[in-house]
């Protein structure tokens, strides 16, 4: 009698423990961090990051001595081989804009040019410094008449479909540019030639290289790494 009682109590306790463990693991599943408790906290963090984001806060200009030595600034792409721009490359700009159009590199160079030397922050934890020049996304938005109600901007590439979508305030930040040059030289294929996204206010994986398309959209569309579990906002 007492044995059965002890057994059933043990069973109940074990069931409670198992239940708690199952709840804890499903709430905090490292392989699916957008779901469960980790996902709830990610959305909380996203709101906190958006609230902290100041559209006028610039990443500080780095002194020239801080430049990362040539060859030490990592190159990165997801394709098996170095992605090379197709012949007749151009950038398509569309979505919620009054004048959707395609830009050649020459046409982009004729738009106002922005230059800066700032620190790059990679999600892995390293930092590096380079100078970049190109055209602000905000200047591009003006050139195509982007609808200010489009709260998101999506950037796509010819690097095996690598893409990322941004909140409009970060995309329209004065240090968010479509860069066609690095350290005073035209962009090299390793760093995203002919055109890449660069910014002082996001982690590296948000800065899509090998650009083909920019679209102003009413909703967020995720991204290559974001869809696998990395944070979508990823501000710095």
């Amino acid at each position, binding site marked *: 009698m007492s044995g059965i009682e002890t057994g059933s109590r043990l069973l109940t306790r074990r069931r409670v423990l198992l239940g708690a463990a199952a709840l804890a693991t499903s709430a905090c599943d490292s*392989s699916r961090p957008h779901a469960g408790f980790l996902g709830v906290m990610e959305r909380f963090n996203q709101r906190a990051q958006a609230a902290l*984001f100041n559209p006028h806060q610039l990443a500080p200009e780095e002194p020239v001595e801080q430049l*990362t030595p040539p060859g030490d600034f*990592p190159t990165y792409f997801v394709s098996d081989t170095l992605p090379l721009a197709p012949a007749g490359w151009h950038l398509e700009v569309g979505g919620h804009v009054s004048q959707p159009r395609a830009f050649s590199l020459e046409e982009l160079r004729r738009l106002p040019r922005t230059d800066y030397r700032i620190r790059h922050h990679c999600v*892995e934890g390293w930092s590096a*410094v380079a100078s970049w020049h190109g055209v602000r996304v905000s200047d591009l938005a003006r050139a195509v008449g982007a609808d200010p109600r489009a709260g998101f901007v999506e950037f796509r590439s010819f690097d095996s479909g690598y893409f990322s979508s941004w909140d409009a305030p970060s995309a329209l930040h004065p240090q968010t540019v479509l860069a066609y040059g690095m350290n005073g030289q035209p962009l090299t294929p390793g760093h995203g030639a002919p055109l890449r996204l660069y910014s002082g206010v996001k982690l590296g994986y948000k800065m899509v290289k090998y650009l083909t398309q920019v679209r102003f959209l009413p909703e967020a569309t995720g991204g290559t*790494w974001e869809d696998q579990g990395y944070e979508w906002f990823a501000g*710095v």
Partner: protein
Amino acid sequence: MHPSEPRRPQPWPIRLAHWVNVPLLAILAASGLQILAAYPRLGPRGRSYALYPFQDAVPPSWARLGGWLAGARHWHFAFGWFLALNGVVYVLYLAFSGEWRRRLFLPRRDTRDAVATLAYYLRLRPAPARTGLYNGLQRLAYTMALVMGALSVLSGLVLYKPVQLHALTALFGGYDPARAVHLLLLALLALFTVGHVVLVALHPRTLGEMVTGGRKKPHVWD
């Protein structure tokens, strides 16, 4: 000397904050080591710090949590809030309950006793007269742990938002110095924890008090 109404050695808010800290520190340390594993070097690209002896050493898998970089970052940024909140509540409690007077290290009051206690541990001098709840050396250690926890959170905020919190970033000397400080603080907090557990094992009564609160007794704040 401020005689006061009888108090437990460990009032419940202290015990709660103390035990909540245990899983939180473990989660943050282990997910932090998983994040470190993604780039186990200190110093910016091409300018690694020569002083750091463990360049490229990947933390062992038993010490890591989160499975991969994205998973670990989600753990770290989810539970970091609770660690910071626990610390803020603890400090507010110390301030408003008066507990800070028998717990925090006040240099003028506690330096002499801290030196005497250290001399006793080093077997240079006999045990100093037992004072209140804690001796000067304990107060120094617990106050340092609190300061290290606060610095961990602040340096962590720099790594999370180096641009938006640029003033804080500058205070730490930049992003990469903050990353080194963040890791150094983890090592120091781990050392503190080892020493803490060893000393508790030598004085088991203190463990009971941190669980039950201990008997209420008349006390003096200092």
